[in-house]
């Protein structure tokens, strides 16, 4: 099981990697913006992606669109402070599979990952 954690905050990436580890996923790559994420997905097969929204260079929502445009079906969970309903709908329409709003309990990360992996 391999994950990609996409967030411009190195601290948030570490927090998310810790949560993934507790969910049984100890193999995780990191990307600091949407561009890096799109490039990483082209070269590696991931089982799940955690994607921030607000990042420099390329927003997470644009990275989701690019990943789907490239034909990749890897489950993507948005993990963001963008909590408005319209943002959630926009992300799901773009191809995200689930949505986590920051701040979050670590148990939420585990539950959401299990949801997308069991579908």
């Amino acid at each position: 099981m391999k994950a990609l954690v996409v967030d411009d905050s190195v601290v948030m990436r570490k927090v998310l990697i810790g949560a993934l580890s507790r969910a049984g996923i100890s193999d995780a790559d990191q990307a600091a913006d949407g561009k890096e994420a799109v490039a990483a997905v082209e070269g590696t097969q991931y089982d799940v992606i955690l994607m921030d929204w607000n990042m420099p260079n390329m927003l997470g929502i644009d990275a989701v669109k690019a990943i789907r445009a490239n034909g990749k079906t890897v489950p993507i969970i948005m993990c963001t402070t963008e909590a408005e309903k319209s943002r959630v709908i926009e992300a799901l329409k773009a191809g995200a599979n689930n949505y986590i709003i920051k701040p979050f309990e670590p148990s939420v990360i585990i539950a959401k990952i299990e949801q997308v992996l069991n579908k």
Partner: protein
Amino acid sequence: MQVEYINPFIESVCSVFSTMLNSEAKRCEVGLVRSASSPRDVTALIGLSGRVRGTVALCLPVSTALAMVNGLLGTDTRVVDDTVADGVAELVNMIAGGAKTKFSGDGTPIDLSLPTVVHGASYAVEYPSGTRWLDVSFTSSLGPFSLRVAFEKTCTPTT
């Protein structure tokens, strides 16, 4: 800016502390400030734009900044380095993000800028002339801190 508009930010601070830091933040005094005459050691700033325009500043003593980021990561960092600055930036991002949702309602979402962190022994944060900032001080098990908010309000919180 009316005092009730600070409530979404206070609620957001408390939410971030309880969920991410396993701590409880207690609001103390709320006051108006015209300038940052005595800023804390570490200040994290983030802008809001769209239907609401403004700035949120999280002002921390070094000890509180270290305790917060060490709490997030389970580390024992003793100096303000890039990781601590990054962590403080993420915290102000989450605080502003939680509050802005209440102002957006079902309308167009308010956008957040990327956060900026200022750190040093001697600096001043200058605000636009005529701007009044609401300053809310907090206590917590991680140390004291304050949140400053100023914005041009064109809508009200939805909850």
